[in-house]
């Protein structure tokens, strides 16, 4: 899959590395060239683009016209929202996703057809689960997520706890 990621912060860089490990074609954009050092020495420089991800020309340079997916994970909700809508409406990228920290904003844009992940809600729920359900901690799928192991694609079977 050919993907373009906007924002080389911790999430953007980690996402890029995860995708590359599975042999996807990833280009990453950031306004600050120093951010690319998070990617490590092996990341090809020609796959990094310095620029403003809400600028059509920058997105074009990063390969949006032929991208299968676009992900906006800068630390600004509104910047992510604008860039994502440019990806959807100007470039017609098939799969567009972004991070939106504000739960109400996420709800509004979900209803308008923009897929997003809200770390605020995800994080709060993880904590809630960890605090309130100590008995099922070992077997909870969210426990796995919180500890950074890979996300299970199927429901975990409690009897197989510990084998992941």
């Amino acid at each position, binding site marked *: 899959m050919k993907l373009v990621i906007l924002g080389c912060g911790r999430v953007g860089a980690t996402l890029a590395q995860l995708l590359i490990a599975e042999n996807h074609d990833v280009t990453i954009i950031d306004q600050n060239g120093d951010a690319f050092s998070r990617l490590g020495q092996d990341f090809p420089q020609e796959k990094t683009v310095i620029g403003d991800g809400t*600028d059509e020309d920058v997105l074009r340079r990063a390969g949006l016209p032929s991208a299968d997916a676009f992900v906006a994970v800068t630390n*600004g909700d*509104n910047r992510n929202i604008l860039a994502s809508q440019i990806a959807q409406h100007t470039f017609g990228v098939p799969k567009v996703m972004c991070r939106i920290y504000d739960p109400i904003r996420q709800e509004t*844009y979900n209803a308008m057809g923009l897929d997003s992940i809200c770390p605020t809600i995800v994080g709060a729920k993880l904590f809630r689960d960890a605090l309130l359900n100590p008995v099922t901690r070992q077997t909870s799928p969210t426990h796995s997520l919180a500890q950074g192991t890979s996300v299970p694609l199927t429901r975990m079977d409690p009897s197989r706890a510990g084998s992941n």
Partner: protein
Amino acid sequence: MYILIGGGGQVGYYLAKGLLQQGHEVLLLEKDGRRVRQLTEELGPVVFKGDACEARVLAEVGCDRADLVIAVTGEDEDNLVICQVAKARFHVNRTVARVNNPRNDDLFSKLGIDVTVSPTRSIQHIIEAEIPHHNLVPLMTLTKAGLSLVELTIPPDSPAAGRELRTMNLPSSANVALVVRGGENITPSGDTIVQPEDRIFALVTEAGEAALRQTILGEEE
């Protein structure tokens, strides 16, 4: 009208001031506390401290009964979200957004913003008007109608000079609305004779503009 303005910078301030003088109910939303105090001192209790792109804030200021929401912060992305949230969650009738990057003009219209105002584009047009060889200057784009209001100055060597408007066979997509000659406003009709130095104001589509350029400026197709 009840008008909400997002962004308490210079534009927001002068806008609020002018609208208040016209007797409208205005609320100016601004994030920064110090600026809010400054604005309140100058304008009175018509300023609210809050981020206009947060639905929570818009709900608190009664966005659902606003007739008009105007987003004039310094960032296009913020202006976009203010207007989109106002429309999608609060069903505000009319939204206006300031757009700094001219490229975002069309996109914002596509995304449902009713009116976009681009200072960059306006200034570009003014500069074009100052440059002598620019005979045709776009003054205003009516995006929804697909029309532009343009101003043409008839050059001395124009193929149209000395001819009646009706002989030019201009399409209806090139609607000549006004002729200004030496300070005099002339409502054009078929027998109006076009003279060099005349300023013509026309409402045109893209095709209409091309027809005008060909007929009046002698430009090749």
